């Protein structure tokens, strides 16, 4: 049964987000979409770049992304969230009863709002409504388990969010980070691992930010010497087993996937929980974000080509700047060397450039076709590359979700 499945599964995307688009001309015009590449997508919406943005191709341009929800671990996940956000009335995750169950103690405010959200609540029309729905979604049983982050680019959206958070019953799970970015006042604590990026254009939607990790892992597992799971102390074979590597720069801890997850889950003391959020590396004792580890793992196992592309790029940028150890991706890691920040900065700039050929594979359908034309010499011949059609398809889908 798995074989059917295997061919389809993609590595965890470097970046996938849902966004709430708003017309800067008319603030009441809103749009919810999802994309693995916000800068390019925004450009599409604004007509700067080609691509499906049918509903936003009007006099309401330019558009801005007020909020993005990032951290989706698969395209499916992002689309589910997007759908739920777009159609709160139809989503099972926004069932009012569920709200009820989530809230520990009923508050008058919450009650009133809940009544205001009958089962068949229509599509939200106002920014406030969208924010409320977002809030509710993030509290829902389903999505609250996901390693998401909310990034606000506009202050008023955040304001609404904050007001609503105070008012509504039930809190956003702690692991869901709220990042104030762009126009919002910066009250992120430094070093929380939720760095500001400044603007949508500076979102780095590729693996480059974890390229160091990728490289390290590849290097570590390439070692023919004895690789032992640091937990069960058994020799591991990266070819036959699912092995994870600690994302910490200097930690060479490797583990069986299940060993590590079991260890992490044990620490949560939640027997029902299946997927850990984070945990402490058994060797370096640093906090490890689980999604990041999984990103590396899946990319290594399923996205060989992609991985190679990233590594190559990494090498190149290494060549340019002498030390490129970008630890940005590792959330919990305080950058030991302060060097990389500058490097990565330049790295994104490259990424931002639409002409940069290396950025190409990371457009919206990268997940469908990984680096179709680049790195052909290193390409894995077995991997089928459905290029053309999938791209079109995705663009359409993306553009269709208008609010």
């Amino acid at each position, binding site marked *: 049964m798995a074989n059917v499945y295997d061919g389809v599964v993609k590595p965890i995307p470097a970046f996938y987000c849902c966004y709430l688009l708003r017309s800067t001309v008319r603030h009441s015009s809103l749009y919810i979409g999802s994309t693995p590449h916000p800068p390019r997508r925004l450009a599409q919406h604004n007509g700067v770049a080609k691509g499906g943005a049918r509903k936003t191709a009007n006099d309401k341009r330019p558009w801005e992304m007020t909020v993005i929800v990032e951290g989706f671990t698969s395209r*499916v996940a992002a689309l589910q969230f997007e759908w739920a956000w777009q159609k709160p009335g139809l989503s099972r995750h926004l069932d009012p009863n569920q709200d009820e169950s989530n809230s520990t103690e009923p508050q008058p405010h919450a009650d009133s709002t809940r009544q205001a959200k009958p089962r068949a609540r229509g599509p939200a029309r106002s920014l406030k409504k969208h924010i409320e729905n977002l809030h509710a979604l993030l509290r829902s049983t389903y999505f609250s388990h*996901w390693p998401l982050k909310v990034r606000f680019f506009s202050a008023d959206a955040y304001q609404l969010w904050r007001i609503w958070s105070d008012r509504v019953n039930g809190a956003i799970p702690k692991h869901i980070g709220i990042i104030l970015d762009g126009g919002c006042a910066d009250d992120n604590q430094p070093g929380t691992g939720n760095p500001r990026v400044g603007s949508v254009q500076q979102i780095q939607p590729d693996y480059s930010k974890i390229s160091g990790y990728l490289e390290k892992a590849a290097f570590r597992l390439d070692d023919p010497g004895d690789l032992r799971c640091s937990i069960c102390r058994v020799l591991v074979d*990266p070819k*036959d*087993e*699912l092995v994870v590597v600690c994302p910490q720069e200097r930690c060479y801890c490797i583990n069986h996937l*299940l060993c590590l997850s079991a260890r992490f889950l044990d620490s949560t003391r939640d027997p029902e929980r*299946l997927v850990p959020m984070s945990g402490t590396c058994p060797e370096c004792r640093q906090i490890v974000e689980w999604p990041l580890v999984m990103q590396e793992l*899946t990319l290594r196992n399923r996205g060989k080509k992609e991985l190679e592309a990233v590594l190559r790029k990494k090498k190149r940028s290494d060549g340019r700047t002498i030390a490129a150890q970008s630890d940005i991706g590792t959330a919990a890691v305080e950058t030991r060397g302060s060097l990389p920040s500058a490097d990565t900065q330049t790295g994104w700039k490259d990424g931002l450039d639409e002409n940069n050929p290396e950025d190409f594979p990371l457009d919206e359908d990268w997940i469908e076709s990984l680096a179709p034309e680049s790195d052909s010499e290193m390409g894995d011949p077995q991997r089928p590359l459905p290029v053309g059609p999938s791209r079109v398809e995705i663009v359409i889908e993306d553009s269709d979700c208008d609010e």
Partner: protein
Amino acid sequence: MSTGTDIIVLSSSPDHIPTRTPAPPAYDPVKLFGLSPRSPSPPPPLSPTELFRPATRSRFFPVADKPPQTEKGEERTVKEITNLPKFNSALSEEKPKRRGRKPASEKSENASKTKAAPRKKRTENTTKRENTVNQILTGRVAKPGSTQLSTSGNKDTGVLNLETTPERKSTRGADWEHGGLQLEAAMKRRMDWTPPSKDSMHIVGLDEGGVQKEGHGFGDLLSEYGFNSEVSSCSNARVSGDDGPTKRRRIELVDPRLYPASKQASHDAEDKMSTEDEQQRPSKSKKPKAQTKKMNTITARVTARYLNELSENTDSSSKETSAPGEDSAIGKSQTVKRKSKAKPKAHEPDFVVLSPEAAAKSLENQDLIFGTCSQLEREDSPTTLREMQAAILESERCVATEPSSVITRDVRSTTTVSRFSKTRGLWSVASRDSEGSLVQQAEIIDLVDSPPTSKVPVAASNNRPKTSTKIDDRAPSLSQDQTFRTPTEDPPARRAPSPKPRKAAAKPSRASREPSSRPTGEQPTMPQYSGFTDTELSTQIAKYGFKAIKNRKKMIEMLQKCWESQHGKSMSTIPPVSQEKAPTSEPQIPSEKATRKTTTRKTTAKSKTSAPSKPKSQKNPPPATAVITPPRPSFIDVEEIQDSEEETIPSPSHYTFHPPTTKHLPISTTPSSPSRPRAKTSRSKTTTSPDLAEQITKAVRAQVPGTPSRPSWHEKIIMYDPIVLDDFAIWLNTEGLNLIGEDREVGAAFLRSWCESRGVCCCFRQSH
């Protein structure tokens, strides 16, 4: 032709036109009549025509003119004319044209001529036609006027003659005055006339003289005119016969040409108009001659019997039902049966319609072999077929674990393949009536136990005496019951009560319900999923709450598991046990049931309506889905046939061996089979049980770690892979839950909630 012009002339009297023509209500019938018929002078005769003009225009213009024609001479001429085939045809041909021309302008032009005579003749002709149309459409054949023809037969062209003949005053005018024209009705009719078929018109002309003479007033004519069901039906039939005018053929169950008599008979029964009947008869009797080509359709042949029967039966059946004693019925049936045996197809024309009982009995005595035409034809000797069947039986029997039982049927069905037992149940059920009793007529040939050739006749002979006697009812039914016994069904339900159609005491509703008492020891057998088509499989799977699976094998696997979980594994494996004693255990029931049964039968009409819907009620064995038997006492009433399980596709052998006797009965088969009531879905149980979710979790964790290319489900979940619920469900149901010794199964829907409650990204397989 000139005739056409003639007619037109009549219609046009300038004076009257303004007042009389246009508006129907304006007419004063009496007044008009008074004037028109008597006065030879142009204006008065014209006036009536004028009056009727609208009618004539449509199709009845003859009607309007009728009054004047009464004179004998005229009639004679007319008849002559009509009798001349050519002329007749000419007229008929002309008519349409005439109509077309008619418009007012012509009238006025013709006014100058104003010859009453032509008009009258014309009118008479037409009136005759009309008459015929109204009363008897059969007219074409009949040429009653032949005697009358003598004098004027010489005239050349009908048209000329018409014009030349002198006018006569109509004596009948008086009639109109008396009766009134009843024009209101006419006008009303006129509003919605439909043009007559050509046929009817010209045919009518021929025989009608007699009718008119009989002295129908014109008013009568008018009033009578209208849709007459009898006539119309006749005319239709005729039309169908000759392809001339319309190519359409009326769809009729029975081709009237084939069985005119029967048809007539049926009509007669309904007859309202005695006078018309008289006329009909002659005409009809002649009709068959006219039909040169005889249409022999199988349907017609077959149904014809019943048509005949209809008339007879209505009487006889009513008598039967009311008849006090069984004896009389049986005796009757016997006698009929004798005839019926000979009946086959040798002399069709005088086929004897058997009483239902007799028919049943005759069937009983008949050996039935089923097969395709080609098959049957190939085997020219019946013995070969039988031998073959016997051989097959034998072979199947060899497989059987059970020692041979006395009852061959039983042996076969149980032994062949245990999986088929369900199917067999269907077959056996099919041979039962609504009360669960056997339909009696089928004789079961004991193919296995006897040397095939010799045995058959014996069996037949054995059965014969029984059935004819009173006692037979129970005895054969019981024996048959045995043979048909399905292990899965409980005896009382299946018991074949003797058909005692007598007292219907119980309430119909109760009667119909009663059979619903469900077999207690029902042991469903697992349907043979491998016999299903893919679509069937997928629907089955859907019923279990799973999404469709592409792989057929998997589907079957899954279904089997589902089924097992539902019914318990033990059942699926247990081969049905034949219960041979069962019939004896309940001697009482039949009689009691019999009484009820009859009630059921009587209320067939009612139950019919309600019955079909019932079987659809899911899950529970539907209460009596009444399969209704035709109201024939000899048949044991059919009772609900219900398959609680999905049926297996019966193996071909079943077809050959079980000629379902019910085939021959017009039993309305309720759609019980498609309904396929779903046995309790296991999901309802399993999903509600609280720990299943934990069990799933356990199962997931119990799975051994996979490889990078084939991660285990746990690993997939950990890696944030979107979980394809369908696959997950399959794995759980086939392997996963077994790992932890969990017998229950999970559906994709349940899995979804499981996943979502744990924040595991999940989705259904996308249809590619």
